């Protein structure tokens, strides 16, 4: 086996791994309001059980498996959604209180609320008359 054959084998193995792990990027709306950052993500087909939200070292990961019951032997005729997983990650700044992040899922839409720490909340500064 020469060098070229080895390289081809590696490339096809990488392609195979990439195919197995193919993921969808869920569309998100992010806005900040009332001392908290709100994320709304579209993840159709994901249930409460298959949704995984993790915060690790300042990185928020949002992952979910598409769990739609499909019959055996279903042949695809036309597929726009070709992956089984959604995954997206965000880095969080330290003013977000990772302990009190809350989430809910409703009809395939995930709502995340990331509150800011008390010490970092917006404060209005009183202006003294001279």
């Amino acid at each position, binding site marked *: 086996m020469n060098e070229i054959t080895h390289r081809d084998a590696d490339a*096809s193995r990488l392609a195979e791994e990439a195919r197995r792990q193919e993921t969808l990027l869920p*569309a998100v*709306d992010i*806005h900040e309001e009332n001392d908290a950052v709100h994320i709304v993500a*579209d993840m159709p087909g994901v249930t409460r059980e298959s949704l995984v939200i993790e915060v690790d070292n300042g990185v928020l990961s949002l992952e979910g498996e598409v769990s739609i019951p499909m*019959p055996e032997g*279903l042949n695809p*005729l036309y597929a726009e959604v070709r992956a089984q997983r959604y995954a997206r990650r965000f880095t969080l700044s330290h003013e977000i209180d990772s302990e009190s992040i809350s989430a809910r899922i409703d*009809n395939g839409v995930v709502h995340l609320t990331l509150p800011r720490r008390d010490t970092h909340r917006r404060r209005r500064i009183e202006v003294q008359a001279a």
Partner: protein
Amino acid sequence: MDCSDGVCGTCKGHCEQGEFDMGDEYLEDALCEDSIELAVDLDEGSGISFLHGQYVPISTGAAAGLFSMRYCWAGAMSCIEVGVAPRCNKPHNVVSEALKPEQALLSCRLPGPVDLVLPGPGRHLSLEEKEVLDMFSDPRGLDPARRQGMDWIHQLFDEMFPSGGAADIRSVPSGSFPLINVGRTDDAVRVYVFAPGLGAEDLEVSLQDNVLTVAGRREPLQESEGRTHFRQERFHGDFRRAVALPEGLDIDRAEASFRDGVCEVVLPKREELKPRRIDVQAA
């Protein structure tokens, strides 16, 4: 460039019966040296090689085989290795992996009454399947090796370099809301509409003349003061999508159900059109 430019040569095939016309637009490098001369001189059933993305069958009942198959660079064809070309002795398109026959989807444009016969472990593609695939002529959308997050690049390139081939009259830019999957089992065709945030009452599913139409409206979040928007990627507003379904479905027994933001529409096939096993009698 796309399949109609005849540049990459992945879809080299040979004529098994009938006649084909290669046309003028292809790169000679796409065919190997021996088969270039043969391609120009098309003859009935003589094993001439040509490019599937280019040919137009000019007689009814024309049939073609494929030398080898894999996902070509445009994502338009998926193939299985079938062997060495009969005329020239060079192996064509030696592939590094073989796909299961069920994964072979042929989506380059194939006009005309042709049944594609795949020799060896391949699978016979019926005409109705080709019709459904041709209708959504977005070959890049069928390439599984690309992350779907790249849809925006595909849309950008589609706008900058529109492909010369004919797009289906109902096709939409990739990544449009809602996304639709269509699958088939032995007894029904199932359509999955990925519409998160919508319930059964927000989605209107109607069926007429084998065209399934999905329409509705997704409301944006309530507007309020003091809100800073960082990203807005989710679709808001009215939408309407239509897909053409294969023939032979029993519309009266169609059912739709909603679950976790995915609407599943089940359309059973008419009884007489389900696949039937034929018993082989000993002579």
